[in-house]
């Protein structure tokens, strides 16, 4: 599908390798033969107009599409060389390793502490209360939220501001120590200040995790990501180094989108 001369869909040392990924919802095809590699310890951003399939593609990588009736995914996605679209693979195990942060912050109606402790508890990652306390603190610290909430860990997570809630959701995702974090427009419900904090956080997190972020903000993609893939009408039009995509796009559709001619 992709011309390897104009696209660098494949990279050396990939974390996730996607080949010929197609998705259809109740017979209507949404993604066509996507080839894309996700690099280790870097941020890959997926950009493109609404409805182009970037969120659908994101949800393939932790099989969240399984939850949707009538959704069929074909092709091959492998994480660390293990095929994940195989029926043998337990989606529940996969999602422990491939975490996800959603567009709208969705803390559970539980205390801040219990929100973070949720993942470690269900996966039995910790032994005893002390270890759990430690995981909660580390996760909140890494999400840059510890200082703000350390005195109110037992208050409901739903009582935090929108930006704090989103960082709580990120802390919740990293508490299970995943390898990959998928972010579906994580800042679209946040104000500029909260957005800046989350972006700083993403930059921090890429040292330990491989991150894929869907965003509608070209500036955000340019600021946080090392690689960018431009989706349009269910295909990857162009993928490459973020700098190259934004300064010297090879495809005129990419050029058109990033200069604001459509989308």
């Amino acid at each position: 599908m992709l011309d390897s001369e104009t696209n660098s869909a494949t990279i050396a040392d990939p974390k996730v390798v996607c080949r010929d990924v197609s998705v259809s919802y109740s017979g209507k095809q949404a993604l066509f033969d996507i080839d894309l590699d996700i690099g280790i310890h870097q941020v890959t951003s997926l950009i493109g107009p609404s409805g182009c399939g970037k969120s659908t593609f994101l949800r393939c990588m932790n099989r969240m599409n399984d939850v949707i009736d009538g959704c069929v995914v074909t092709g091959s996605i492998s994480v660390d060389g293990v095929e994940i679209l195989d029926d043998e693979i337990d989606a529940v195990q996969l999602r422990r390793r491939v975490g996800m942060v959603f567009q709208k912050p969705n803390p559970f109606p539980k205390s801040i502490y219990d929100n973070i402790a949720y993942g470690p508890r269900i996966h039995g990652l910790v032994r005893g209360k002390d270890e759990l306390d430690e995981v909660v603190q580390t996760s909140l610290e890494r999400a840059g939220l510890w200082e703000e909430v350390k005195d109110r860990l037992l208050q409901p997570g739903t009582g935090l501001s929108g930006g704090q809630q989103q960082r709580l959701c990120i802390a919740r995702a990293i508490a299970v120590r995943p390898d990959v974090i998928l972010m579906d427009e994580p800042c679209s419900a946040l104000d500029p200040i909260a957005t800046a904090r989350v972006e700083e956080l993403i930059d921090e997190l890429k040292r330990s995790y491989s991150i894929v972020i869907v965003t509608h903000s070209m500036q955000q993609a340019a600021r946080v990501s090392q690689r960018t893939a431009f989706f349009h009408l269910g295909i990857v039009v162009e993928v490459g180094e973020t700098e190259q995509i934004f300064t010297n796009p090879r495809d005129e559709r990419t050029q058109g989108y990033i200069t604001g001619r459509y989308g």
Partner: protein
Amino acid sequence: MQVWLILGVILLLASYGYQRGRGGALASVSGDASKLHSLPSYHGAYLALWAAIPALIACVIWLSAEHQIIKMLVISGLSADSQALEPQRLALLMSDIRNLASGDIVRADPSPEVQAAAVRYAELAQVSLYAKLAAIAALSALCLFFAKKRIAEQFRARNRVERIVRYIMIAASVIAILTTIGLVLSLLFEAWRFFLRVPLHDFLFGTHWSPQTAIRADQVGASGSFGAIPIFAGTLLITLIAMVIAVPLGLFSAIYMSEYASPRARGAIKPLLEVLAGVPTVVYGLFAALTVGPYIRGFGESFGIDASSESALAAGLVMGVMIIPFVSSLSDDVINAVPQALRDGSYALGATQSETIRRVVLPAALPGIVGAVLLAVSRAIGETMIVVMAAGLAANLTANPFEAVTTVTVQIVTLLVGDQEFDSSKTLAAFALGLVLFFVTLALNIIALKVVRKYREKYD
């Protein structure tokens, strides 16, 4: 008959008023409805309301006063002897006169005085009918006439009509509220009379219930004892059995329907469960009394337990089945109201479906589920027919579900069924029980609604 005639006349005048109002409004702008402040139909409705409402109010007043006035007129025509009769005898005489006037069966050979009075009664009723018709038609026509004068291009008929409609709706809800207040007051007054005879603490804390009282002085063996504890205990026992059945079954079916069932299965199961809610309780009662009760007795016998064929267990089991759709339908609604985003968040952390349901969905839906259960409890406490048919009448103070017990509702029914005098402690006890029932279910409903509302605020 009379009432239909009057209503017909009012309806006729109202529809005439509607036509005139509509036509008049259109005529005032020579057919161009866009020049009117209000649509022509509002002008019509304005006239129709004026034609109907004052006339209806007058009609209600007339009908309620008519009987008293005619009675006074008839009595004033009676002989001085008859007028001097004591009130009850006079009422008896009046009812004779009225029966005779309407051609019903009366006591043997009425006296000439009564016959004359009956003729007079019939005459007066006839006059009243004509006068009523004339007065109401005149009032209606008069209102119509004055209202018609206001029809004009800039007349704000829409605002007026909407205001009148608003008053009508307020009146409707006021009637509902007044009825409730009246209901509570009647309960309170009768219960007050009961508590004058039986001390409150004897009623609330007494452990012996035997409401038979002697009507005549020479009767023996029925002293009357009104300790309601066995009844409350019986009610609680049956409610408990019903909830033990209904809560798990209802909750599990709600979880299945909202979380696991395919849309097709859900489409089939939900209506089926709701059919259970539509079965008349007397049919459940038959089932409990004729099928479940004897089966439980047989089952108990095979284990050497002495079970009576009317048992708390039979009534409780069947009542539990009856309540399942309440619990399942309400719980299904609250579980569905839990945002999908919370489930996604849990799945994305690698939780399985059952972990997600247990740890995220159910805790989030818990207040709503508690509300559903409380509503079901108040339904179980107030349920009558099943317990009347299957639980028995014996006021046993027991926790053994194989024994017959009785409930508050059953006792109210048995105290009031049949020929009763309404000033004995026995019948008045029913009102005291009703009062207790009313307040308990009221409190449960208030708590349930509060809990449900608190839950709603969270996600809206």
